[in-house]
C-alpha cells in the first residue's frame, strides 16, 4: 500500500515538473511572436517589390522553384558572363543543365549553397557551402588533414586546385595553372571514390600543400593509438592481422594441449568445459573481484608499484599513455559515428585542434620517454636483476622506432601542409620536428609518404609480433591475474 | 556522562577554537571560490544557471563580499587568540610547537625529497611538518593579499584616490591568479597531503575532532612525541 502512494506521489511530481519545464521552454522561446504591428497589412503598391523580394520558403519545393527562378532570370541568359583578366568567363546555368549535372540537388535552392551571394555587391565571401546539409567525412573516407579541403575541391569536376593563404584551406582554383581564368558554373560532380580524382592534389610539386602520393587509409589496427576507420587499409595490415591471429591461435592451442578439468584428449570437451567455467565465473559474485583486479592491477598497475616506484613510473609512461590514446581513439571513432556534426566530435577528429594535438603529442612523448628510460636502464645502468634477452631488445626497438617514426611523420605533415605557428604550437613535439625538418631542403611532399609507410610498417610489425615475444604479456598477465583471483591460488604456490 | 570522552590512546591536538576557525575557513573559502569563479567564467551556460540560482549577479557579488568579511573575521579571531596565548596563557610564539619556520624545516624538505627517490629514510617531523607550516603561512599571507586586492576591487573609487588607476587593474589580475593558485593548491596538495596519504586514507579527522590517535602521533610527529614523553593523561 505504502509503495503505491509513493509511486503516485512520484508521478504527480513528474507531471508537475513536466508542466513546469514546458512553461519554461515556452517562456524562453527566442523569437517574438507578438508585435504591435502584426495585424497591419502593408500598402498595396509594395506588393510589386515583394513579388521578387519576398524571401521564399526554401524548405518547400514551391519556394525552391521561386528562389531558383529569381537567379535564372539572369543566369540562364546565353550571354551572361564576367570579365576576368581579359577573358570572358561564362556564368550560365540553365535549369536543364543543372538538373542533368546535379539531379540530387534539383529541389535545392541556389541560396541554400550559395548562402551569401544574393546581395549587392554580387560577390561571395564564403563561396558555396555543402555543410548546411552534409556532415564532414569521418576518418574512413577522408582523414583528418582533409578537413581543411573544401567539398568542391574533391567533388567537383575541375582539375585545378589552390591553397588559399588567407585561411589555409584547399579550394578549387578559378584559374588554370597558366593563370588563365576558367569557368566553374557547370556544377558537374566528379567521382570522388575514384583514386584518379585524388591525383588532382596528390602529385609532385602540387600547389595544395598535399603529399606527393595518394596514401591508403589507416587500418582498423591503428585504433590502438589513432582514430581509425573500420577498414583494412593497406594489405600489409591485413597480413599483420593474420599473423597476429595465427600467433594467438597457436598460443591458445598450446595451452589447450594440457588437461582441462580432468579432460585429457577431446579438444571439443576442453573448449566446452573452459567456456562453461568462464561463463559461470562472469555471472557469479567473483565478477566483483575481477573488476577490482582490472582497476587496481591492470589500470593502476598496483603490483609494479609494489616492486618499485621507478619501474612503475617507467612502465606507466608507456602503458597508461597507450591506454589513454586507445580510449580516446575509441571514443572518437564511436562518437563520430553517432554524431558527426557535434562540436566535440569534430574537434577530436581534427588533428590540428588544440586539444587533440596537445593530448596526442603529450601522450606520444610519454611513450617515447618511457621507452628511453627503459633503454637507459637496460643498456647503460644495467642493474643486476635486469636480464636482456633478444626478445626484450626487439620489443623496445619496435615500439621505440614506431613512436620515433610517428613523430617524424607528424613533423613532415605539419611542414608539408604549412600549418602556422598559432595552430601548430599545440602539437609541440611535432611542430618542433617540422621546424627541424624545414632546415633541410628536401622535397618533403615526396618524403612524407615514405615516412608514412615506415611508420605503418613498424605498426604492422608491432601488431604481428605481439603474440610471439615479450609483448605477449599484455594478454597473458591480465589473464593470469584473473585466474589467480578466481582460483584463489597465488602465483608463488603454483607448480 | 561526559560528552565525547577522549578514548584511551588518543591525545588532544587541536583546541576547540582552532577547529571552529578551520570550519569557518572551509565554508567561506568554498563559497568565495564558487561566487568568484562564477563571475570570471560567466560565459558558460551552466555558470549562468548557477548565478541565477544564487539570485543573480548582484546577489552573488554580495555573497562573495559577505564571505570575505566573515573569513577575515576568522583571521582576526585567530590573531586575538595569538595574543591571548602569549600574554594571558604566558606561552611562547616561537619554539618547536609553533608554526615558525626554521632550519629543521629546510632539512626536512631536502630529506623528504631524497626519501621520495629512495635515497634516505623519511624525515622525523615535530608538531608541524614543513608542508603544514607552508600551508599555514601561505593561507595567512594569502588572505591578506586577497583581502587587500579584494578591497581595492570593492572600492575602486576610494583607492583611485590614493593609488594610480592601473593599480586597480593589477589588483584584478592578482586577485584572480591568486584565487586560481589557492584553489588548485588546496584542492590537490592540501587534500592529498591530509586525506590521501596511504596510511591515513580515507580521512584525517583530527582537525575536526581535535584528537589524534597514538599511532598517528608517533608516526607523523615523532619529534613532538619524544619531546613530550606522552602518557595517556597528558594533553597538548
Amino acid at each position, binding site marked *: 500500500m505504502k509503495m503505491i502512494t*509513493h509511486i503516485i506521489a*512520484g*508521478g504527480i511530481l*513528474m507531471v*508537475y*515538473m513536466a508542466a513546469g*519545464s*514546458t512553461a*519554461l*521552454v515556452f517562456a*524562453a*522561446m*527566442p*523569437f517574438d511572436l*507578438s*508585435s504591435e504591428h*502584426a495585424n*497591419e497589412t*502593408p500598402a498595396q*503598391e509594395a506588393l*510589386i*517589390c515583394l513579388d521578387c*523580394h519576398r*524571401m521564399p520558403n526554401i524548405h518547400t519545393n514551391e519556394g525552391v522553384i521561386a528562389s531558383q527562378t529569381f537567379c535564372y532570370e*539572369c543566369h540562364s541568359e546565353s550571354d551572361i558572363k564576367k570579365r576576368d583578366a581579359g577573358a570572358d568567363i561564362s556564368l550560365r546555368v540553365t535549369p536543364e543543365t543543372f538538373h542533368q549535372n546535379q539531379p540530387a540537388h534539383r529541389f535545392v535552392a541556389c541560396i541554400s549553397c550559395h*548562402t551569401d551571394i*544574393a*546581395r*549587392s555587391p*554580387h560577390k561571395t565571401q564564403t563561396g558555396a557551402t555543402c555543410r548546411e546539409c552534409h556532415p564532414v567525412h569521418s576518418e574512413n573516407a577522408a582523414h583528418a588533414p582533409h578537413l581543411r579541403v573544401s567539398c568542391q575541391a574533391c567533388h567537383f569536376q575541375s582539375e585545378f586546385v589552390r591553397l588559399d593563404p588567407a585561411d589555409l584551406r584547399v579550394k578549387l582554383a578559378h584559374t588554370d595553372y597558366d593563370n588563365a581564368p576558367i569557368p566553374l558554373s557547370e556544377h558537374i560532380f566528379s567521382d570522388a571514390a575514384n583514386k584518379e580524382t585524388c591525383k588532382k592534389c596528390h602529385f609532385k610539386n602540387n600547389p595544395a600543400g598535399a603529399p606527393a602520393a595518394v596514401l591508403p587509409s589507416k587500418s582498423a589496427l591503428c585504433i590502438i593509438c589513432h582514430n581509425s576507420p573500420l577498414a583494412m587499409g593497406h594489405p600489409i595490415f591485413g597480413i599483420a592481422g593474420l599473423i597476429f591471429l595465427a600467433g594467438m591461435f597457436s598460443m591458445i592451442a598450446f595451452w589447450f594441449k594440457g588437461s582441462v578439468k580432468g579432460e585429457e584428449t577431446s579438444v571439443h570437451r576442453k573448449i566446452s568445459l573452459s567456456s562453461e567455467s568462464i561463463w559461470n565465473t562472469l555471472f557469479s559474485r567473483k565478477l*566483483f573481484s575481477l573488476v577490482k583486479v582490472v582497476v587496481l592491477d591492470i589500470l593502476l598497475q598496483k603490483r609494479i*608499484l*609494489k616492486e618499485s616506484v621507478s619501474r612503475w*613510473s617507467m612502465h606507466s609512461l608507456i602503458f597508461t599513455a597507450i591506454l589513454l590514446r586507445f580510449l580516446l581513439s575509441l571514443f572518437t571513432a564511436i562518437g563520430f559515428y553517432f554524431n558527426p556534426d557535434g562540436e566535440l566530435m569534430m574537434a577530436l577528429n581534427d588533428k590540428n585542434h588544440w586539444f587533440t594535438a596537445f593530448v596526442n603529442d603529450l601522450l606520444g612523448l610519454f611513450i617515447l620517454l618511457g621507452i628511453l628510460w627503459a633503454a637507459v636502464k637496460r643498456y647503460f645502468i644495467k642493474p643486476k636483476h635486469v636480464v636482456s634477452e633478444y626478445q626484450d631488445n626487439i620489443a623496445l626497438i619496435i615500439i621505440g622506432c614506431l613512436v620515433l617514426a610517428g613523430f617524424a611523420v607528424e613533423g613532415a605533415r605539419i611542414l608539408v601542409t604549412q600549418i602556422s605557428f598559432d595552430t601548430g604550437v599545440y602539437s609541440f613535439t611535432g611542430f618542433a620536428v617540422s621546424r627541424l625538418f624545414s632546415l633541410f631542403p628536401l622535397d618533403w611532399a615526396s618524403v612524407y609518404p615514405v615516412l608514412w609507410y615506415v611508420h605503418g610498417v613498424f605498426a604492422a610489425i608491432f601488431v604481428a609480433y605481439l603474440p610471439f615475444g615479450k609483448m605477449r604479456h599484455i594478454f597473458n598477465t591480465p589473464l593470469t591475474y584473473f585466474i589467480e583471483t578466481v582460483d584463489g591460488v597465488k602465483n608463488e604456490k603454483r607448480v | 556522562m561526559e560528552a565525547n570522552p577522549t578514548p584511551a590512546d588518543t591525545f588532544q591536538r587541536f583546541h576547540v577554537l582552532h577547529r571552529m576557525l578551520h570550519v569557518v575557513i572551509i565554508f567561506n573559502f568554498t563559497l568565495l571560490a564558487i561566487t568568484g569563479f562564477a*563571475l570570471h567564467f*560567466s*560565459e558558460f551556460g551552466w*555558470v549562468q*544557471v548557477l548565478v541565477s540560482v544564487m539570485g*543573480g*549577479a*548582484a546577489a552573488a557579488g554580495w555573497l562573495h563580499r559577505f564571505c570575505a568579511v566573515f573569513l577575515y573575521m576568522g583571521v582576526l579571531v585567530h590573531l586575538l587568540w595569538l595574543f591571548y596565548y602569549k600574554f594571558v596563557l604566558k606561552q611562547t610564539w616561537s619554539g618547536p610547537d609553533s608554526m615558525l619556520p626554521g632550519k629543521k624545516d629546510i632539512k626536512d624538505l631536502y630529506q623528504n625529497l631524497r626519501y*621520495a627517490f*629512495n635515497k634516505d629514510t623519511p624525515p622525523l617531523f615535530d608538531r608541524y611538518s614543513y608542508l603544514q607550516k607552508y600551508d599555514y603561512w601561505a593561507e595567512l599571507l594569502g588572505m591578506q593579499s586577497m583581502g587587500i586586492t579584494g578591497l581595492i576591487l570593492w572600492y*575602486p*573609487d576610494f583607492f*583611485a*584616490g590614493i593609488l*594610480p*588607476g*592601473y593599480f586597480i*587593474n*593589477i589588483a584584478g589580475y592578482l586577485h584572480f591568479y591568486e584565487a*586560481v593558485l589557492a584553489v588548485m*593548491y588546496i584542492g*590537490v596538495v592540501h587534500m*592529498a*597531503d591530509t586525506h*590521501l596519504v596511504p*596510511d591515513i586514507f580515507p580521512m584525517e579527522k583530527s582537525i575536526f575532532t581535535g584528537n589524534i590517535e597514538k599511532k598517528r602521533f608517533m608516526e607523523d610527529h615523532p619529534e613532538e612525541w619524544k619531546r613530550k614523553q606522552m602518557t595517556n593523561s597528558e594533553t597538548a
Partner: protein
Amino acid sequence: MKLQTGTKRKKNKVLTGWIYAFLTAGYIFLAPVLLPCTLAASPAPDATWFVDMNQYSSAAHGSLGCEDCHGAMIESGPGREKPHPDPDGEDFLKYQTKRRFDYQSCRKCHKTAYSRFSEGAHAAAADEEKKTGSVSRTGHAPVCGDCHSAHYSKSHLSRVQTGRIMTETCGTCHPDQKTSYLSNYHGKAAVNLGHEKSAFCTDCHGAHTTMSLKDKEAALNACLRCHANAPPEFANIIIHDTPKTRDMKNDEKQAGLKWVYAARAVILFFVVLVLAFFYSHTGVLMLRKLHEKLRRHK
C-alpha cells in the same frame, strides 16, 4: 558484498523508488535545458536581396511599406524608366547597397538619433571617408544601416537584450575592444550575467554620439555616470587592456598598461612555479608512500 534479506531489503525498495522518481522528474525538468534548443527561428541567410516577411512583420518597421523607405527606387511607376537598380548600368551589382542608401530617409522619423549621430565620431569618420575616399584602419565608417537592421530590428527590447545585441554589433568592427570588454568585470556582469547596473558599450561611449574616451576628462565623465564619487585618477583604470588597442590610448594610460602586463607576467610565473613544485612534490611522495604501504601488506 552481503546479500540483504528481510526487513532491510524492503527499506531499500522504498528508497530506490523515491530515487527513481526524483531522477525521472529531474530528467524531465532538465531536458529542455540540456537539449539543444531546436525551436529557434531559422535565421535569414546572408541573402539581403530577399526580405523574410515573417521576421519583418514582427519587427519594429513591420507596419511600414517598402516605399516608405525605398520610395525613390519605385517612384517611376509602371513603365519603370528610372531603374531600380538599372541592369544596364555601369556599376550594376558591384556597389554595396548599404553604402549607397540614402539614410536621410531614417531622419524622417528618427530625428534625435540622427542629430546625435552627426555629433559623434562615427559621423566624423564617415565624412572623412567621403572626402578622402580612404578607409580608416578600423574599417568602413558605419552609418545607420551598418549597426541597425532596418528590416529585422525589434522594438521594446530590454536593457540587457539591447546591450547583448550591441556588444555583438560593435564587436564586429571593434573585436579587440569586445574581447577586452568581455574579460572585464563590466562585460562579464552585464553581458554574461545580465546585471543591469553594469555598463554596456553605449553607457560609456554614448549611444549614437559615439565618442572616443582617449581624453582623460571625457573618460572621467563617462565613469561619473555610475561611479558618482570617482576621483580624477579613476579615469586611468583601464577597461580595454588588450595589446592591439594600446596605441589608441593617451600616454598616461599606455605607461600604466605596460606595468599591468609586467605585473601579470610576474604573477603568472610565480603561480606556475609554485603549483609545479608542489604538485611534483606531492606526486613523488605519494608514489613512494603507496609503494611502502603495498610492501607492508604482504
